[in-house]
């Protein structure tokens, strides 16, 4: 049982994460402070939602790029609409309008993929450039900072505040509750629903899944709608936490989110991946960025250090798999022993 646990790819990521935390902490003990954890979680919030939405699509064997465009465009459209109406109520309106737009955008990619039998990656690339172009040309090209009073306040709506021994205070933002809820939902969906099991089935082998009676169209519909909703929520949180909505938000981020999901043990070819692994992958990428500050690396060399760390962290699971293959069986079989 324990051996089985140790051999999962999630465990390798967990060890990497703990190793990084301890090593950086030993070099600079300030890193062990609770504020590191709170700040990392806060910086991860948006990426958690994006990664949760992307995970089922990657497990189903597809790679989507357009989810960042869904996040940016749906939230920016909601903001511009509400601002033009002089809206000054609660933030719930943002979530409702964004999610409605996100669902429509999810339905469009689902329609194109299933009706014309197209690869998800190709369609999502076209939609990525189309949606960003759409927002910039038709909705507006400037970042908008006019949040309603409830939206401005949300920036510091904290769950708990802790006094630091050094003097200052640090807070855990309340958005983490929704991250946990979304994570639990995806976990339940993938593990305990027929459609969720079908996601793994079509990712493992589409042909076998069809012949065993899985409804591929329905499964794809579900995961694209989930992607649309979670991306829209991510977009709204991006706006609320950064206190502005922009038409080009997150444009440089799709590859980082994909990397986080795959670092977390999901297979790029489908059929494999867990919520727990995804959480670890997202935190790992954020923690690397945070660690650099504490290691005292000069700003101009920080990107290089991130690159080095990435090369090491992506090589470890690959080397492990390679060793397992040399022994004459795949990692899947190793895990069973």
């Amino acid at each position, binding site marked *: 049982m324990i051996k089985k646990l140790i051999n999962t790819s999630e465990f390798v990521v967990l060890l990497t994460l703990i190793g990084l935390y301890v090593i950086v902490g030993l070099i600079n003990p300030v890193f062990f402070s609770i504020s590191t954890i709170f700040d990392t979680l806060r910086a991860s919030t948006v990426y958690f939602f994006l990664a949760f939405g992307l995970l089922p699509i990657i497990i189903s064997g597809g*790679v989507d*790029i357009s989810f960042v465009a869904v996040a940016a465009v749906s939230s920016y459209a909601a903001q511009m609409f509400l601002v033009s109406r002089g809206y000054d109520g609660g933030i719930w309106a943002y979530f409702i309008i964004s999610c409605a737009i996100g669902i429509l955008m999810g339905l469009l990619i689902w329609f*194109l993929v299933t009706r*014309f*039998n*197209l690869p998800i*990656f*190709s*369609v999502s*690339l*076209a*939609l*990525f*450039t*189309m*949606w*960003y*172009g*759409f927002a*910039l*040309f*038709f909705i*507006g*090209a400037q970042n908008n900072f006019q949040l309603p009073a409830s939206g401005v306040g949300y920036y510091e709506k904290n769950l708990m505040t802790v006094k630091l021994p050094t003097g200052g205070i640090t807070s855990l933002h309340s958005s983490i509750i929704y991250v946990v809820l979304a994570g639990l939902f995806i976990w339940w969906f993938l593990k305990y629903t027929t459609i969720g099991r079908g996601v793994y089935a079509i990712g493992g082998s589409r042909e076998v899944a069809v012949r065993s009676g899985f409804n591929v169209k329905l499964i794809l519909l579900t995961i694209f709608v989930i992607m649309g909703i979670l991306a829209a929520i991510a977009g709204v949180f991006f706006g609320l936490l950064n206190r502005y909505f922009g038409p080009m938000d997150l*444009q*440089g981020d799709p*590859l*980082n989110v*994909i*990397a986080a999901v*795959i*670092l977390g043990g999901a297979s*790029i070819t489908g059929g494999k991946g867990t919520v727990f692994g995804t959480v670890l992958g997202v935190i790992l990428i954020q923690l690397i960025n945070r660690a650099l500050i504490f290691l005292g690396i000069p700003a*101009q*060399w*920080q*990107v*290089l*250090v*991130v*690159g*080095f760390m*990435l*090369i090491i962290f*992506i*090589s470890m699971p*690959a*080397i492990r*798999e*390679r060793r397992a293959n040399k022994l004459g069986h795949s990692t899947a079989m190793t895990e069973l022993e």
Partner: protein
Amino acid sequence: MAANSDSPNFQTSLFNKFKNHRKDSQTFILLGVFVVLFVFFGLINHNFIAAPSIISMAFQLPEIGILSLAMLLPTIVGGIDLSVNSVANLAAVVSGIFLVKILPVNLLNPALSVVLAIGLALLIGVICGMLNGFLVAYVGVPPILATLATYTTFLGIATGITGGASVTGFPDQMGSIGSGTIFGIPITFVIFALLAILIYFILFRTTFGFKIRMLGSNPTAAKFSGLKNNLILMKLYIIGGVLSSIAGVVAMSYTMSANYEYGTTTYVLLAILITVLSNITPGFGNVFNIFVSVLILQIISTGSHMALMGVQGSSFFKDFLWGILMILIFILNYFMHRKEIQN
């Protein structure tokens, strides 16, 4: 004897015919789109088909064209190279610093120092390609992750050595490539066309190219046929690295400056978009499609810019149009294939 349509030979030949036809149909669609767009933008704005606008397009497209060729090779073996643009920038930045700060300008003939700097850029391309190839082929990292990590690393090196500043002040000879013409055709465009022909030649007229396509269509079969898959992948990524560094030199020579983050947010996805539009799939690639796709994107970019002159945010309309056009081409392709299958 007449009813031999069930014989395996007949089926194989039919299958091949179908497959060849399938490949050609994308070229056919792309060429059609190219002509339609050209006429359309020409009718909207007569300046579009005038020589100055066509020459300016020919100056703008080689960079992204060469980056797309660099992206083509990994795509044919089912991989991807996200590092193409940062290899280009790193090569440009290193050779730029070498040219401006290290070479004794007064002692050497400026033309010779430019040649040395370009040689250094190509060397950087080889080294970067080797690192990509090593991670993908010998460590066994999925290409999308490996090249994302090297993308960050190369970007990091370029950021570190420049401290975020642009490198400028090259001798005039540097600009002679980027702004020079041969018989009225920009030199950089000629370089792009020659490289496209070279890649076509490598892929379809050499044993190495045959091995690449075999590896792409079935890696396991290739391995059991005695091919050294790892070595092929390594060579492939090195060629990709060199092509990327050439794109870097072209950009440096055109803009007369080198910057660590030139085109960072858009160029990589644009290069992937071109390979997707060209219908490059593992084992199958058509260099001519890449060439036409690059032309199409440039026509939309320049054409919509001229048509919407003065409208706010007009430079973003091309992104919207690119997306719509890609989806239309996918759908058109679907209907053409469906007809063939029914026939």
